[in-house]
């Protein structure tokens, strides 16, 4: 969508240790303006630490990072003026009302009174908080609190937003509402770095995804590219009769057949090129197929494979043959 290719965040070799424990072991990031970048990883992988460093909350032990060209270590205030952070733990003032929280932000962002009031009214409306604006935040539900939290981040119209596990603990409905908001922000040109443990969330939202494990980036790419990184992708051919299945099974000798279902599972990376050659092969062998479906592995599969967790797919016949990339 976005035509600009400016890097919003560039990080090189970020390192952080707490005592003996290495939390970040050399992280490189390049995040393009106006895109959603998801940092995915299990608890303790270093996601929050990365966000804390990039949002100037803590200093890195090594490496450097820039936000729109401003060096984090040398010009933290210039960076702070461009960013907004919604952390894992709600960053709202529980003793104040929703409106008072937003007013506090407007004052700290140095908006003038009228502009501040307009912005607050817009945000309350946009985040469906107008009715609750006068109530103390301590009475808010988890979803409302999270929405207020994000609304507070947006008061100063930041160009880069860090969202640390924005939907953790939310019910499915609130989660979808949050996804909707995040997409809308990206559509306005805001750059978003989000962390999540939910692979579906990264898949749904992110333009690019990076896997973080034990303080290292172990893979990075679009969700689709990442899914192709690992074996397990295949095309399922459905046949009308046994004859068709037999014929096809002879043509694709790497395939797995299921006689009861009349299906043949052909290893494939799911890409257009390999699909085309598959269809060509079917054509030239004059095999008629009743239905065809492409199965790419989901990010769960990718993550488990990349982190060297026990590979439940090891028994699959297509395991060895699948393309590396």
């Amino acid at each position, binding site marked *: 969508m976005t035509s600009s290719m400016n890097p919003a965040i560039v990080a090189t070799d970020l390192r952080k240790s707490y005592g003996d424990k290495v939390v970040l072991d050399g992280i490189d990031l390049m995040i393009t303006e106006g895109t959603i970048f998801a940092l995915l990883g299990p608890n303790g992988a270093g996601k929050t630490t990365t966000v804390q460093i990039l949002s100037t909350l803590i200093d890195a032990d090594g490496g450097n990072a820039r936000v729109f060209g401003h060096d984090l270590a040398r010009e933290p205030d210039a960076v702070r003026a461009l960013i907004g952070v919604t952390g894992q733990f709600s960053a709202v*003032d*529980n*003793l104040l009302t929703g409106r008072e929280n937003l007013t506090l932000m407007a004052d*700290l962002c140095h908006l003038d009174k009228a502009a501040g009031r307009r912005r607050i009214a817009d945000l309350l409306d946009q985040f469906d908080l107008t009715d609750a604006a006068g109530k103390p935040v301590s009475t808010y539900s988890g979803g409302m609190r999270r929405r207020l939290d994000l609304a507070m981040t947006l008061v100063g119209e930041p160009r880069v937003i860090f969202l640390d596990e924005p939907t953790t603990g939310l019910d499915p409905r609130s989660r979808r509402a949050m996804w909707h908001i995040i997409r809308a922000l990206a559509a306005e040109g805001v750059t978003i770095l989000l962390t999540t443990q939910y692979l579906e969330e990264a898949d749904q939202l992110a333009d690019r995804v990076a896997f973080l494990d034990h303080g290292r980036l172990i893979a990075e790419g679009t969700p689709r590219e990442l899914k192709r990184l690992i074996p397990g992708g295949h095309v399922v051919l459905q046949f009308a009769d046994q004859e068709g299945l037999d014929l096809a099974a002879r043509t694709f000798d790497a395939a797995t057949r299921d006689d009861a279902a009349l299906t043949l599972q052909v290893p494939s990376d799911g890409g257009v090129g390999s699909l085309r050659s598959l269809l060509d092969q079917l054509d030239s062998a004059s095999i008629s197929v009743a239905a065809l479906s492409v199965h790419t592995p989901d990010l769960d599969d990718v993550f488990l494979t990349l982190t060297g967790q026990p590979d439940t797919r090891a028994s699959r016949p297509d395991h060895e043959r699948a393309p590396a990339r």
Partner: protein
Amino acid sequence: MSTLSLAVRDSSTMLRRNLLHMRRYPSMTFLLIGIPIIILLLFVYVFGGTLGAGLGPSGDRSQYANYVTPGILLITVVSAAQGTAISVAMDMTEGIIARFRTMSIFRPSVLTGHVLGSLVQTMLSLAAVTVVALLVGFRPTANAVEWLAAVGVLAMITFALTWLSVALGLVSDSVETASNLPMPLILLPFLGSGFVPTDSMPTAVRLFADYQPFTPVMETLRGLLLGTGIGANGIIAVIWCAVISVGCFFWAKALYNRNRTA
């Protein structure tokens, strides 16, 4: 925006935040005013007859009410300072502090907001305690200028002790610790000239009492409000307050900037 106007603007925003907290949750303020009032009543109506007799041949309960009031005013300041340490420690556990740290604002404004808020709160407490003191027999002889000077001295020591308690609130790893750390301060008016003249104390205690910071402050207040001699106590009080304020400001600032993930 210049650093100074940024500092003023953000500090006043944070002051509004703290005043809003106090207005919405006034129970803490009342609790903090309660302590000095109870001590005042105890010392005037329970111990006052005997202690008053010790002040001199003509000493009595009403004279003791005069004598003890400056000490009670300092108890009020210390009591409020304890409240400040608690509210700072509580505030630091809130996620919003992390948000403040990632914003392009005057960085110590979170702390200056607390200090200014506590200053307002303490001055109001002092006014309330003074009214009670007047009701139980405190008869100051001060004129308008002396009253103004006394308010100034109280503001000065409040400012100093508030920065100290902000630092104590920051150095505490829990709200309980923050509540306990300033406790010893409440003893200082007793271990000074607050409740009995220091020359009635044994030498070691008297030396401590004469040279600790609360005594010159109480003697200055006593002089301004009741016309006793001030001597060098005025200037000593000013120096103590300045040293404590500046030292604790830098201490608090360093504590706030360290360990930024907390």
